[in-house]
């Protein structure tokens, strides 16, 4: 790429000219690399979609990318499995990720706003605890979290997955960064001078300015909780409370005397990733991922 680009760009005085430049490789090669990357990312997804059309026998006997004849049967098997358990898992995933992300966004925004816009004793300590939480491997907490949940009598319930999902040190950190940048000091001061209480200042002045940041935290949390495996896997033992990740895993990890239900897991994977991909693609235009690195500048 370097050899091809250099001479052409020196010849071109303006970017406009560069775009009309004659050397075709300068445009074809970078685009080809990009498309190669796209292909790399799409092939496994395409495979899931193709494999979900294969019957149990075809899955292991026909060529990898050859479509099968079992799609409808797979789908009806999937939805019939364990009296419609797959739908329960979908609902659980939606509950954990949806409610968890909403609550997490609220808690993070409030905390981030307080950390960014107030000066008070203990602020540093709290902020460093949050930073520590960002850097701490979440998984190492899973076991003690389990024991604490059981002290609270919540192990195995929806709460055991939902409550730990609400707290997101990274969400608080992001919200603080965004609040510091997006809510001007003067606006807050002005609202206070007008006699607005702190809560009103927050809800009617700050929150509208924080919406892009909140969407970002929501998305990150939603996908994070949706994809989480270990926390629900450790907390839950009742398959009626499983989210999709643990449910699909349970299809693969059967006891001795039962074969893994590969075709069910695959069609389940296909069905469950399609809506999530759609959601992510839809929301990606609203979120502000530059926040994440913006915070580092200080």
């Amino acid at each position, binding site marked *: 790429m370097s050899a091809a680009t250099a001479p052409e760009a020196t010849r071109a005085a303006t970017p406009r000219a560069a775009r009309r430049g004659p050397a075709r490789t300068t445009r074809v090669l970078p685009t080809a690399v990009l498309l190669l990357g796209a292909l790399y*990312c799409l092939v496994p997804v395409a495979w899931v979609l193709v494999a979900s059309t294969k019957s149990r026998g075809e899955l292991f006997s026909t060529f990898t990318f050859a479509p099968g004849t079992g799609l409808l049967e797979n789908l009806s098997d999937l939805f019939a499995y364990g009296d419609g358990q797959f739908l329960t898992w979908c609902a659980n995933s939606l509950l954990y990720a949806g409610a968890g992300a909403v609550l997490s966004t609220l808690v993070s925004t409030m905390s981030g706003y307080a950390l960014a816009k107030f000066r*008070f004793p203990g602020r540093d300590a709290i902020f460093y605890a949050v930073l520590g939480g960002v850097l701490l491997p979440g*998984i190492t907490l899973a076991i003690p979290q389990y024991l604490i949940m059981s002290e609270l009598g919540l192990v195995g319930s929806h709460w055991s997955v939902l409550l730990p999902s609400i707290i997101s040190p990274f969400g608080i950190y992001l919200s603080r960064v965004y609040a510091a940048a997006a809510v001007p000091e003067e606006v807050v001061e002005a609202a206070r001078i007008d006699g607005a209480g702190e809560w009103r200042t927050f809800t009617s002045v700050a929150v509208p300015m924080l919406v892009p940041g909140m969407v970002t935290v929501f998305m990150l949390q939603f996908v994070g909780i949706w994809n989480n495996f270990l926390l629900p896997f450790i907390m839950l033992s009742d398959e009626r409370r499983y989210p999709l990740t643990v449910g699909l895993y349970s299809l693969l990890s059967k006891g001795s005397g039962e074969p893994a239900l590969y075709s069910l897991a695959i069609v389940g994977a296909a069905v469950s990733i399609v809506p999530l991909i759609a959601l992510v693609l839809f929301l990606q235009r609203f979120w502000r991922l530059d926040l994440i690195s913006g915070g580092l500048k200080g």
Partner: protein
Amino acid sequence: MGTAGPAAPARPAARPPGRAGRRGRVPIAPYLFLAPGVLLLVLFLLVPVGYAVHLSLRGLRVSGGGPFGRREEVFVGLENYAAALTSADFLGGFGRLAVYGLIAVPLTLGLALLFALLLDATTTTAKRFSRTAIFVPYAVPGVIASLLWGFLYLPTTSPVSHVTEALGLGAVPFLSGAPLFGSVANIAVWGGVGFNMIIIYTSLRSIPAEVQEAARLDGASELQIALRVKVPLVAPALVLTGLFALIGTLQVYGEPTTLAPMTTSITQTWVPLMTIYRDAFTRDDLPLASAASVLLAVGTLAVSVVLLRVAQRRAFGSES
């Protein structure tokens, strides 16, 4: 990050009297805003950390004697730490983790940066499609990603091995020997490139147009602009994505665990977290697992802090 703390914490006693009225309410409000967050932080972060430390100093020992005596919890001091630090399984996991990380981290970041620069370059087309496509794996849970890559790796079901076998080269041993590290790392790269690409790309988009124009007028090529102008300007994004990739590496668990039943090459102690899980749940030795967790957490914190310090000095120069 150095400027994170307040410049001058307000001390109630030293408050100027003229601002007391306005500031008088301040000490309560931020605490109320923070209350839910701090409560959850304490309950699900600090208390578990404390609990883990407590557990790590205890051990399960048979009491009452007899071949079927029940095990009970007793204080054992630093025995579990000594056991974890001398365990060949646990330490070996870090060795394998290093190899894995050396593949996964540079590849994830390198590809993410490459794709982000290409998206930002004036010379490429099909950007929207590519950006979306590369981002798609982010929406696929790790467990599912491992399952589907597993199918693409195993000789009989792999399309790659289909081709190599047709060429008479035999199946590609994706899941054994040295290629195994690449195969596991590939799953992480596949899942991580898109997200990191978007972070870097959004940073690139925020570079003022004049900066690039100026470089072009100076006769710089697109490549030169990319390397000399854009990359230094998105350094903070690179540091941050690097940090995430590193933390992600230390937490690798799902991918090798899902692949393990498909090969004889992934042991139950392949990476440190797998050892921790095995000790906690398969071997019912929660104290040992807690000690190993504490060590891993401390190690992660140390590595992160060092990385941030170094990066800050390099990337942000005299700032802070």
